[in-house]
């Protein structure tokens, strides 16, 4: 533990700016993954243990598209759309059959898909760490702010993630689709009785959730190295985010994800070995004091 390092950092604006920037981008990426997870849980009541695989596949799809076209825009679209399509296919073929099944069965099916996707990624892209490299458009001098260094790509990432977050919020609050989805979360029978194709809504929502994770993977590709199995760490983190923020709450996911991003970023200076532990301490504290999460609605029994 090195609290003096943290103190020194806190005393210099350059260090604060750099760390906040790093914390915000990992927070926003985490938010995108967690938002998908919490959306799927909130409406479908399904805890998607394979959500981390969507993130991983998003990164690899983006890598492949970037290698083929050289366009980062194409890479992000490939990552998001590819994983979205995969999500839709999975929902219609497998996942919809297990919404009401035993949790043991749900977990096993997700476990199976994690194994399969990890192995397939290894087969297609190899077992070594891959790195996509920074797109040329962002290869510019970093922006200096109060003496801190902010790579231009970070600004782009935060901007895009914010745009997606606002887009999701608008979709859920302002559109007919959002109304249907919210109604489905509360009273599924009622919505079905109105003659709405609920299966289609479920499938699209699952695909949307998957797409969010895929887009996070694709967006992160230039700044993260890729390997089969990379999805699992982000799965755990996004679960922690949803637990802290409240299962089903998008706003909660945003707050919790940014909080974790910042804790991680500053924690890595102050107590590098205990950063992981600190995040767990926060989560456990939330679970004990407010089990439904900071923004959660439903109270669990027992």
């Amino acid at each position: 533990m090195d609290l003096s390092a943290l103190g020194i950092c806190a005393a210099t604006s350059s260090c604060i700016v750099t760390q906040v920037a790093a914390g915000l981008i990992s927070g926003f990426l985490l938010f995108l993954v967690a938002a998908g997870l919490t959306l799927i849980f909130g409406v479908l009541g399904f805890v998607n243990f394979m959500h981390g695989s969507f993130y991983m596949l998003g990164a690899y799809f983006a890598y492949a598209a970037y290698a083929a076209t050289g366009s980062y825009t194409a890479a992000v679209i490939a990552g998001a759309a590819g994983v979205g399509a995969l999500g839709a296919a999975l929902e219609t073929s497998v996942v919809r059959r297990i919404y009401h099944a035993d949790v043991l069965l749900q977990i096993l099916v997700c476990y199976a898909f994690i194994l399969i996707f990890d192995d397939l990624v290894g087969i297609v892209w190899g077992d070594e760490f891959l790195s996509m490299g920074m797109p040329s458009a962002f290869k510019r001098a970093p922006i200096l702010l109060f003496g801190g260094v902010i790579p231009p790509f970070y600004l782009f990432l935060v901007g895009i993630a914010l745009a997606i977050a606002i887009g999701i919020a608008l979709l859920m609050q302002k559109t007919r689709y959002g109304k249907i989805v919210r109604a489905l979360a509360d009273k599924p029978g009622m919505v079905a009785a109105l003659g709405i194709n609920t299966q289609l809504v479920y499938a699209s929502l699952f695909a949307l959730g998957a797409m969010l994770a895929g887009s996070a993977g694709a967006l992160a590709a230039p700044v993260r190295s890729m390997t089969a199995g990379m999805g699992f760490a982000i799965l755990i983190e996004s679960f922690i985010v949803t637990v802290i923020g409240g299962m089903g709450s998008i706003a909660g996911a945003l707050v919790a994800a940014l909080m974790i991003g910042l804790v991680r970023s500053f924690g890595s200076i102050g107590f590098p070995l205990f950063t992981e532990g600190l995040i767990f301490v926060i989560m456990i504290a939330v679970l004990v004091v407010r089990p439904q999460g900071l923004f959660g609605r439903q109270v669990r029994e027992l």
Partner: protein
Amino acid sequence: MKGTLKEVAVVVTIIAGAVIFSGLVESGSVRDSIIRLCGVGLFALSLNLLVGYTGLLSFGHAMFFGLGAYTFAILLRTTGFGIPLAAACSIALSGAVAAVVGAICVRLTHVYFAFLTLAIQMLFYSLLIACSGLTGGEQGLIGGIPRPKFLGVDLMQPGEYFVFNIAIFVAAAWALWRIVRSPFGAALRMIRDNPQRAVFLGVDVYRTKLAAFVLASAFAAIAGMLTALYVSGAYPNFAFWTMSGEGLFMIMLGGVNGFAGPVVGAGLLLLLDTVVNAYTAHRGLFLGLAILVTSLGLRKGVVDFVRDASDGRFASERTGGRSKERASGAQSGLHEAAIQQSNTEGV
């Protein structure tokens, strides 16, 4: 008392059988498979105390498998402890850690419990990697574990080592068998079936679940120790999430009805592993497909499936008798309801 004597007789017979077996069979590979099954099978059995009997879906059980293995291995390597003392310390430590982890986790139900156990397991895993001075980090504890003689038992002798594994496994399985058939076991099943009603019958659901969690973890630690002795080391993947997932799959394979199901499931998984490893390096792909086929195709354990299928075939041949016990719940329910109806009308 009579039941106990009978159980003791079974236990003694199995161990005696192991002694004879080890004298007759020279094949090291057959012995090795059985020894491996002892560790993995006990792990699955201990997990089923939570999953099958208490309805607590732990996705982090491998943490205690790993904790037992590492503690045991480290104690044997770095202290002069004998095997019994090292084992006792490992079990005690695993139980104590389980009490802390359980105190946080068992408040939650269903998928929340599954996730939290998973998350804490991954924290433990990253600690194992981080504390490389003690644990060997990513490499694990390599370089062998000593097997000092104790109480006249020499585990360097293959025959004695084999019998030792069988004896520990059978003793632990017997203890678990007694537990699930004790009043405590009944309390676990009450909580599984209907926790709310259990509360209103005065069952202390929290404490009971916590006790089950600690017990299951202690048995998982024993399983970890057997495995550590077998591979003569301890590795991070002992405590990796995939190990917990495999434990769940073993339970699924073996079927949740029946005490020995998880052991059968463990055996089937080891067999599948052997076959897959012989033909391909892509274990994940094939294991994943196998899980999908069994869980989505059969919707129940292989053992359940085989049993139900054979019951269905024989049900028409037998009239009444034992087959009635396993007749589908709905049917016998209707039947009994009809009988009840006529009874009450008669009064």
